[in-house]
């Protein structure tokens, strides 16, 4: 009887141990939202692993260059993130990326991080007629990333 309990406990721990990464993987795999342009593509502007780890650094670095120095047409552009990753509802209407279960919110909710990007930046693809300073390339150009380690680099 006792041995059965022990084996049961071990079994449960084993089961939990197996489930946790699976659950985590599930939470992370919800990253590409159904109906978004990104769902139809192989990878982002950089390999997925690299984007997952470093997207905040890419965006933060380039936002200063763009705002303060006027360097546009950069490879990592938040408006293009939105264009590609915003999902659509049943009626074909775009869903904000920071809405419950959507691309940005799904992961940030999971890790309890609240990105302030969307206090100012729009959360759905723009349909504005006059828009400038924007990449319109269909396929993201290849960017050399070999020199960048896949990990958060902070100094």
């Amino acid at each position: 009887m006792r041995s059965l309990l022990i084996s049961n406990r071990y079994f449960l721990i084993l089961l939990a141990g197996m489930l946790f990464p699976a659950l985590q993987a599930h939470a992370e795999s919800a990253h590409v939202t159904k109906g978004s342009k990104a769902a139809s593509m192989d990878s982002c502007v950089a390999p997925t692993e690299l984007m997952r780890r470093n997207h905040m650094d890419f965006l933060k670095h380039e936002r200063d260059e763009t705002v303060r120095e006027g360097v546009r047409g950069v490879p990592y552009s938040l408006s293009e993130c939105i264009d590609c990753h915003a999902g659509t509802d049943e009626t074909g209407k775009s869903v904000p990326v920071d809405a419950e279960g959507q691309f940005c919110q799904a992961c940030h909710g999971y890790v309890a991080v609240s990105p302030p990007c969307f206090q100012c930046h729009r959360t759905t693809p723009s349909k504005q007629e006059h828009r400038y300073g924007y990449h319109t390339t269909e396929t993201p150009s290849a960017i050399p990333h070999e020199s960048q380690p896949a990990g958060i680099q902070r100094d």
Partner: protein
Amino acid sequence: MSNKGDQPTMERRNFIGGTIAAAGAVTLAPGVILQAVAANKAETEAASSENRWGMVIDTNKCADGCTACVDACSDEHGLEGHGRPQTDAVWIRTVKLKDTQTGHISRLPLMCQHCEHPPCVDVCPTTASFKRADGLVLVDRHRCIGCRYCMMACPYKARSFVHEVITDQSVNAPRGKGCVESCTLCVHRIDAGVMQTACQEACTKEGHGAILFGDLKDPNSEISQALKKYDSTQIRADLELNTGVRYFNL
């Protein structure tokens, strides 16, 4: 070939700038030549101090009752009012001036004057308010804490504070609650190489043509030629801010 008295108190800089401009291409060392930068910058290039973007407005051509420039600006930057004129964001507004002696009424659009020595930049505690290399005075919302010192410092009342949550912003102008903002001289267009602001486009389309935008540092630009030919006024010239926006017939 001088830069139109770009700055009244910096004669030496003016002299050097003028000399370099006159030379066109300067030989730094044998084989090393510094070429003048082309007027329209490429998207991936940083803004250059070889340019200074500015505007000249002919008040005689500004038509009574016309709000084309204001509407175009709102449309371009996604500025939506809440029906509360005291707090709604305004980047460009029309102003009427009446000479009480003669009864003559002047009309003019007033916006950020893009000063060479902007008081808003002087007072900003977080360097959110800044002057870009090409003379545009902008707000970096990533750094703005909404203290509104700049609004107090601006002699032109050109800045607005965003009081309410905004959604569905324009991609041309990301903006949100708690930040100060003002005219950017359509920086998104300049960076894309489109040398026409939204207000100028609308004014021209209306047939008034009161607004002219261009590079003040390029002696051959239309705006430089116009400023050379006709007398122009800076509003509150006594403050010696050397505004980038000038007015004819004021």
